[in-house]
């Protein structure tokens, strides 16, 4: 049995019909055709599917799409404003924080949620938060550098504003 639901992703409404067993990750990718959200394990371990739901980072493979109705969902496709990259996207490029790029959307969304909190994360908080996603290519070093740099950039601008 399929249910009609409406998902709000990056400010756009998507009206889709889904079976109750379909995960949010699956529906974002297959029904809404936003394939930037990746699936690495479907098991809640790798974090490649991380999206932001009502301000919090969420593993989209662990949520059913029907549960996300009415929520504000943000995915990697919504980070840049036109050709203007989000500071995290720029920092990931500048610090070589990606190789194959498969884990990147998950890390970007995880970090976005983290850096949108009022206070910049301490190094320990950053370390702990970023330890929840897997990357098989980079050894994490440059991901940490990138997020730290973006944190500085974002909190400097918001402080100045």
């Amino acid at each position: 049995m399929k249910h009609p639901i409406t998902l709000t992703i990056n400010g756009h409404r998507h009206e889709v019909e889904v079976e109750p067993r379909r995960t949010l990750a699956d529906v974002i990718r297959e029904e809404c055709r936003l394939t930037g959200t990746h699936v690495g394990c479907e098991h809640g371990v790798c974090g490649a599917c991380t999206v932001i739901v009502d301000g919090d980072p969420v593993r989209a493979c662990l949520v059913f799409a029907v549960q996300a109705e009415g929520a504000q969902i943000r995915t990697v496709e919504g980070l840049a404003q036109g050709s203007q990259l989000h500071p995290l996207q720029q920092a990931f490029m500048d610090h070589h924080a990606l190789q194959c790029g498969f884990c990147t959307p998950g890390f970007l969304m995880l970090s976005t949620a983290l850096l949108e909190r009022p206070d910049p994360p301490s190094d320990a908080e950053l370390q702990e938060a970023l330890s929840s996603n897997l990357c098989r290519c980079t050894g994490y070093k440059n991901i940490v550098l990138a997020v730290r740099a973006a944190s500085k950039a974002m909190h400097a601008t918001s402080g100045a504003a």
Partner: protein
Amino acid sequence: MSAAIAAAGETPVVDRPTEAPVAVPGTTAPHNDRPDPFGQSVTRLEDLPLVRGQGRFAADLSFPHQLHMRMVRSPVAHARLLGVDASEALAMRGVVAVWTAQDVVGIPCIPLREGPSVELDPYLQPILARDRVRYVGDPVAAVFATDPFIAEDAAERVSLDLESLPVLTDATAALGEFAPGLPTQPTTIRKGYGDIEAAFAKAACTVELELATGRHSGVPLETRGAIGRYDAARDVLELHGAAKVPHRNRDALARMLGRSPHAIHLFELHVGGGFGVRGEIYPEDVLVLLAAMRLERPVKWIEDRYEALMTTNQSREQVHRVRAAVAADGFVLAMDDEFFHDQGAYVRTHGDRVADMTAGILPGGYVLPAYRVTGHYRLTNKTPAATYRAPGRFESSFVRERLFDAIAQRMGIDPIELRRRNLIRPEQMPFPRGIETIEDNIVFDSGDYPLLLQKTLDALDWPRLQADLQARRAQGEAVGVGLACFVEKSGLGPADGVRITVDFTGAVEVVTGGASVGQGFETVVAQICASTLGVDYRRVRVVHGRTDRIQYGVGAHAGRATVMTGSATHNAALRVRAKALDMAASMLGCAIEGLDIVDGRVIRRGDSGPGLALGDVASALAPTARARGEREPGLTAEGWYETPSMTYPYGVHVAVVRVDRDTGAARVERFFVGYDVGRAVNPMLVEGQIVGGVAQGIGGALLEEFAYDENGEPLAVTLADYLLPTLDDIPPVEVMITEDAPSPLNPLGIKGAGEAGINGVGAAIAAAIDDAIGQPGAVTRLPVTPVRLKALLRQRAG
């Protein structure tokens, strides 16, 4: 601390022997206000779509009207397959077909990449199991349906009639039977040189060890995927989701399916990590192609994680019984090794190459006047094995360096000093190793191993590090340091070609048969092209992984992409440059010698005028352009690079490890890599490769293991059981890149770096754990899990 080390937060610095600008041979010195991109840590061309979520990985690609494939796999490790009943599945709405071995009778087993082998061919894997299943996960049937969920549900309703057979899970145990008349050891590898018996007879001391490396593998974050599509209008069969060796695989698939290579094309999409396992031909690749033709619809298959951990190539599982003959001064006279290589259930595309490479590279960078090795290549009822990053080297470095640590301990010589006495000296280069592997007659092309060791010790301030650790141990901490020396190999030949074309806007296209597995291939090739030609690297588009654009290609494996494709790019760019200068000289009415190409413009040397845009030169060379005269049309050229032999970079790894005596957990506090790369095209990318490799090595040394129970049931089939390292497991990795020994074999002097980070990690961590717990020689097997480490600690207490 030396300026050459990139610690956390710094951009990598290369320890270059001279201050001279790094100009590429055959071109002029870099232009002042725009530095030569060669040797610079420029940002990657690949990144933009990937950070925007616009990448296209296999699962992201769909074709209209496509079908979805789901495999039915063996639930047991070894059984006779008596029958398959698919009637219930076939009756389901949306199910289009279910195939078993009977439906693919004419299709041969997946062949060895390097050609047939009488010994190994009987052990190859069919695309669907015929009369036996040989590991948990062995594909038995394929279900095709209109929706992936329907396919999955239907696959569960296919029932198998199986009759149990004895299960073999230990490659050192008595031989079993692969099939009637075929024992589980298809081949034995033997190599060596020098007089072993004489060496042992005159040895002051002999040291003997049994050592084992665990079964682990690449485990890319993206699972495998393949989409087959048949375009009847053009009679072209397409495989999307190819990786690593698209051209070689096209040829093999063409043979298997009885098609001309012109009528089958492979397309690489974004690849979410390769590490040796992705891009081999697996049964599913052949099945989607066959189904696309027969069912006349595109067919998509995306592996799930459970399947990935059960069916994608595994690696590394070996047991070595090694002994050394040592002279009184610590000089190692001979090494004698017998090892057992666990190949798993079938011989796959690599054949016995991992075992062969293990045997070939085991002596490492030590002089070793005599060497003998016997490798038992054995089949078991586990997932088939093949290459994983630094195949044969991670394993052999563990064995060799453990042996050298044991010798040092036995002789009472400092382990560093022992290595110094045995390392090949620079004046002995090029050094013929005296052994062949399948691929090459091993000749170390260049290197100063003692120098790199010394630079590493200096960078770490070795005496001070030792004193610090001593002091901490005195306080009761279990902390120690371990070091490993190794020689890598890269640039496997024999030849690679590229085609470079400049269009009328001045944009440059490099078409290569190389492949990208996420390592920054496009950027590196663009840098080499830009540097040689005289353009901005961002104006260079690199086309790869498409068999329809270029006839030949070596792909990306065995550390060959930069060396082979890079050198071919250099050669092609030189030719384009010559053509451009020739045309421009006639357009500007001056001599070629007076011209240079800078930032995409042909200029007169010493003249600040605007010069001529390369795009205009390309226009003048168009087939229809009058200005062209008798010149060959097009600002385009092919370039080839052929190498007689591989190049051998080398490195030193140092690990500092702290052990928690209560939990048995080993934590790597610090990891240092000293590595000579010949010349670094992009130090930032080299460093990135190395740090990533170290992380994987730490996984293999401490966490990752494909364990099986005695029935051959795999115990690590989710990422909750198979533990990939997280940020929390990885220390700040320090990297020192040196350029003391450029390769004499290629025009750029480069050597590969893809495997530099992982090679010696197991060895260095093992030594550090020994040191931390004060039990020399304690670690004899990887991974050192908390359970194993607790057992070692108890041994001592007991």
